[in-house]
């Protein structure tokens, strides 16, 4: 078991015991292959994450044709170009931030999120405070991330109620003219692809 910061002389807590008991019951009944559990964990803990999405955004910033295509059907083209496909990424559409529009994504009903490009969602995305607040008060919600959106900019909130998944393409930061996709990728954060922050600025964040 990986070290998780707990003193190993502590007795395990109730949840640890409950999940261990369930896992051993399912293994004993022959309903679960433990090697398959490891595949699932390895995939989402180490292989799939927001680095995937950052590659998609960087390409969209340098390639207007690619940007146009991913706003219609992102899933097909990112499978072709990057091999990103699978669960919770079957039907992705990109939504582009512009000088007039800022997009932010939520799932008010559960935790729907584009796994193939962003990995598993952070705790705050799955929790009641963000899910309840951002649809009614997006500026207030974004302020909790230190993000201020100009009053004259329209904030569009995308509530992921179906199996469609939305990926925000943040605005390309100023001062990055001539940058390569590899250089640009470093400016793209997970939070900027959910829409709660802007992309990093080369002047202030790098």
């Amino acid at each position, binding site marked *: *078991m990986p070290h998780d910061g707990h003193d190993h002389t502590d007795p395990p807590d109730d*949840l*640890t015991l*409950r*999940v*261990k008991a*369930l896992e051993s*019951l*399912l293994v*004993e*009944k*022959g*309903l*679960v*292959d433990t*090697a*398959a*559990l*490891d*595949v*699932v*964990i390895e*995939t989402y*803990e180490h292989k799939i994450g927001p680095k995937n999405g950052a590659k998609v955004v960087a390409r969209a910033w340098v390639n207007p044709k690619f940007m146009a295509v991913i706003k219609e059907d992102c899933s097909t083209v990112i499978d072709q170009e990057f091999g990103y*496909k*699978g*669960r919770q990424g*079957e039907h992705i559409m990109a939504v582009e931030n512009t000088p007039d529009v800022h997009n932010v994504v939520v799932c*008010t*009903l*559960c*935790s729907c999120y584009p796994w*193939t490009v962003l990995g*598993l969602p*952070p705790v*705050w995305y799955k*929790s*009641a*405070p*963000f*899910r*309840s*607040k951002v*649809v*009614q*008060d*997006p*500026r207030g919600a974004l302020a*909790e*991330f230190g993000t201020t959106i100009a009053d004259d900019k*329209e*904030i569009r*909130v*995308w509530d*992921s*109620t*179906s*199996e*469609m998944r939305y990926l925000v393409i943040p605005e390309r930061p100023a001062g990055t003219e001539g940058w390569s996709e590899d250089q640009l990728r470093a400016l793209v954060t997970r*939070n900027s692809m959910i829409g709660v922050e802007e992309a990093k600025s080369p002047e202030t964040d790098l």
Partner: protein
Amino acid sequence: MNGPHDLGGQHGLGPINPEPEAQEPVFHEDWERRTFALTLTCGMLGQWNIDEGRYARERQHPVDYLSNTYYENWLAGLETLLVEKGLVTAEELLTGVAEGKAEGYRVPDVDATRKILASGGPTRIQSDLKPSFSVGDKVRVINQNPLTHTRAPRYTRNHTGTIEFGHGVHVFADANAHGRHEGVHLYAVRFEADELWGEEAAGGPVYVDLWEPHLEPV
């Protein structure tokens, strides 16, 4: 159902309190990691679909749903489905002792698991079904209060929006959660902030994906 999961527009739930992105691990506790993996692998046994999975979590008592952490809700949902679908008995769950091997299930091995993760579960259906609505049409969300699963959030009910675009025919989640696999047209509907929240609304438009049975013409 008008459950505790339907959170859009609720107040008093506290600060968002985001953990800094660079410091947040994928899992915070080992039991979360195991619960996540058990939920996915048990789902691959094919005994329930994603909407039944969601419905199992949101059927919990509202006090439990809201006081649980995220993966506690997953764990509760998984236990519910395992018993309801007859994969384990309530007694086995309580004692942790298997009464016997489960027979007749195809348990994915490592290769099958990789394939299932990579293929996902597309919900778009090729269909000749004609859409009832076009881009730009005004629609109203029906006023419904089903005891069953619905993906039409409460804050949209009886409110008027505009069809922003059609997504084609998709599996209808509200029926799928109860074992009925039906394809209907799905749309992104734009609701203006003042329509949803009143004249004092400070926000912007909200886009919600809704299926044709949720909508009526205006």
